[in-house]
């Protein structure tokens, strides 16, 4: 009785989801959740690509970049994914080592990513800088470096994401590491009194910041653009740090086991095109990977200069990660 009702429930619930366009080949793109959401680039990307590919683009989502990689690793060689979109360079060394990805064979042109690009497995589709975002109407003295932040009165509170469960959290860990190397533990010790709390993900942290729980939140330099463009609210700003800002470069790659390798290639090419890239700024709220003909949308601050960009190479990031995490944990557990 139990099993029958389970099957009946399953049937009833899945019928609605059954695909109608069964004849066309299906391109499976794995991505993180907010990319495919109604407010992200996903729906527009799907429409634009389906107009030229004679295929059905289907998104499959995992929580964020790291969850995405874990998912692909879990599926391994049986994976039905064609393209994985949404890893970042802090993850690509591990992704490459898994042997699950195939070379893309594309030489990107007109690239806007600081520092150039030569990864044979992954192509960048957008990028941004991690930064602490604050409310101009509320925060009087804005710190302009980690040291200034550490020296600020204890009442200045920041909320950050946990590196173990969040991409920006890991970004901050590597930011401090890239800027201060062996001195990173000292910086963390200085920051500790200001860290109100550590959240599981970006949403929780940003939500708490907007509710006035903390004075600053770890986010992106492009976050204020969202408030300005979508909400006509210019009160939010990103604090620019003298040490420079750690970059997040988001990438996509083709699976070695892709059921539709040709479509996957076509999609990666499309990803680097003006059509796809022009969607990025006001849907994913990041900088596009290529220079747009029209330039950045109004309200989007120009990126901080490339010489202020900090980043560890994928291999460095992989090596630095575990030690940096241990330092972070011990500094904040005191």
């Amino acid at each position, binding site marked *: 009785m*139990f099993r029958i009702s389970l099957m009946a*429930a399953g049937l009833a619930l899945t019928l609605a989801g059954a695909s109608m366009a069964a004849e066309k080949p299906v391109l499976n793109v794995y991505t993180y959740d907010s990319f495919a*959401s109604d407010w992200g680039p*996903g729906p527009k990307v799907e429409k634009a690509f389906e107009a030229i590919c004679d295929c059905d683009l289907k998104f499959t989502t995992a929580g964020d970049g790291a969850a995405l990689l874990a998912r692909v690793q879990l599926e391994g060689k049986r994976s039905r994914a064609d393209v994985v979109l949404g890893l970042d360079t802090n993850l690509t060394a591990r992704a490459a080592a898994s042997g699950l990805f195939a070379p893309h064979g594309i030489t990107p042109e007109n690239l806007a990513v600081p520092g150039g690009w030569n990864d044979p497995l992954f192509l960048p589709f957008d990028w941004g800088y991690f930064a602490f975002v604050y409310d101009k109407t509320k925060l009087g003295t804005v710190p302009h470096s980690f040291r200034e932040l550490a020296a600020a009165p204890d009442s200045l509170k920041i909320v950050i994401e946990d590196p*173990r*469960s969040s991409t920006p959290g890991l970004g901050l860990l590597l930011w401090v590491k890239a800027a201060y190397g062996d001195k990173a533990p000292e910086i963390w010790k200085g920051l500790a009194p200001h860290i109100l709390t550590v959240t*599981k993900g970006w949403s929780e942290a940003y939500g*708490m910041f907007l509710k006035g729980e903390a004075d600053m939140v770890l986010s992106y330099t492009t976050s204020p653009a969202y408030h300005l463009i979508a909400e006509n609210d210019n009160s939010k700003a990103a604090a620019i740090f003298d040490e420079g800002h750690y970059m997040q470069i988001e990438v996509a790659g083709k699976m070695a086991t892709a059921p539709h390798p040709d479509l996957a290639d076509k999609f990666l090419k499309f990803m680097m095109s003006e059509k796809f890239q022009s969607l990025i700024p006001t849907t994913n709220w990041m900088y596009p990977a290529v220079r747009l003909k029209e330039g950045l949308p109004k309200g989007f601050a120009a990126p901080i200069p490339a010489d202020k960009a900090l980043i560890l190479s994928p291999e460095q990031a992989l090596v630095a990660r575990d030690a940096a995490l241990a330092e972070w944990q011990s500094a904040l557990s005191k």
Partner: protein
Amino acid sequence: MAERAEQVITPALVAGLGAAALVAALSLGTVAVVAGAAVSPMRLGAGDWAALKFTLSQALVSAALSCALAVPVARALARRSFAGRGLLVTLLGAPFILPVIVAVLGLLAVYGRGGLVSAVLVHFGYAPLSIYGFRGVVLAHVFFNLPLATRLLLQGWQRVPAEHFRLAAQLGMTTRDINRVIERPILRAVLPGAFATIFLLCVTSFAVALTLGGGPRATTIELAIYQAFRFDFDMGRAAALALMQFAIGALAAVLAWRMAQTRAQDPQLAPEVHRWDCAGFPSRVADSLGLLLVALFLLLPLAMVLIDGLRGIALLDGRVWLALGRSVLVALASAVLTLLLALALGLAAVSRRQGAIAGGFESIGFLSIAASPMVIGTGLFIILYPLVDPASMALPVTALVNAAMSLPFALRATLPALRQAEATHGRLADSLGLGGGMRFRLLHWPFIRPAAGFATGLAAALSMGDLGVVALFADPDAATLPLYLYRLMGSYQMTAASGAALLLVAASLALFAVFDRWGRAAR
């Protein structure tokens, strides 16, 4: 008894075995699958022992505090009748079924640095409240679980026959005498189980503990499991941690059973008992004040969710209703599944009078409370991925896993009622030759209907709010309401998200209330 011993294999036993196998596969089986898929050996890291320590200490304190506070609250509710008492009891159920993220933001809106209490403090020149740290974790867990403890204790009070309170009145017992003669035995019977349940719920906590814990000190085992999957992709360690969590669960369950004293229960229920010992002014003031404080503590954050949500609800479009529809479907399926599982296990447990087998069915039903949602989801994914598209299974898997997670509560609610039915009228049913369906309909169902209503409502509501279990099965084109809510938040749509949160809370509460009322109707 001889008559029934002839039937060795009864339908009840078969159904019970089936349900037990399913639950065991979901909870322990998935750990085995994850361990089997691991390339790394099953071992623990140095940080994991710190996680164990933190997990245990916060869970112990949270459970102890929840139970300690629940005693006066349940007592006050049991001995006072006032307008709105029923509504208050229903609303007290709300925090327990709130989605984690909604509850945390609601709590912070009251007790946070930018919350109501801090605003008042700052206004009068004091420093804002600081709740982050161990106390924040405990505060949040008490917020979630005090209502559950209260509800469980209240059920204990309601099992006391009305004559006992009358007898106490006639014998001129003081409040203190009643406490010793009537209430303490109730507490001895109910508290260990309530404590163990809440302890285990706090053991598997993750996002709440992290967010309010203020930093990596507040790392629970469940967070370590999450880290093992997502950050290290070390499934051996994940499996080892999951087993550690099971061991804690088993230990807690055994201790609870040892401490709990079972006693004969009388069938007469007295929902609101008039009490003569506590008509005095001081005791009335104490009860009213206690209830008021607890109501404020629990309902203010809910009120903040409401106020916040009203602004956001206008920003929602039609898609949110689709998501709501899916969630309600999942919740209903999950509720029905929970009830079927609980009945299958419960009936199998009472159909055997020998302790070992009955105890076996019972303990299997409680397995899933110590299970790691992350491990269940991953294990199922490993099994199902080669066979089907996980996204196409999103809703059935959500319903199934949520049903397994709600099963311990459903069993805790229905099993005592089933036992009572067998104890008081089992022989009558035997003598009338009532077996199978008739026995269930005439003997068991009337007794367990209120408990079944409560349990089904709880399962439906818990299923509405939960999403963590099935992230791997999420279907991007058919989001449930919690997923939709997280997506809004992940896309800067915080105001709309609070609208969705309000909708989620309202729908969960409504589902709970409908089932609960249905259970209590027509006695």
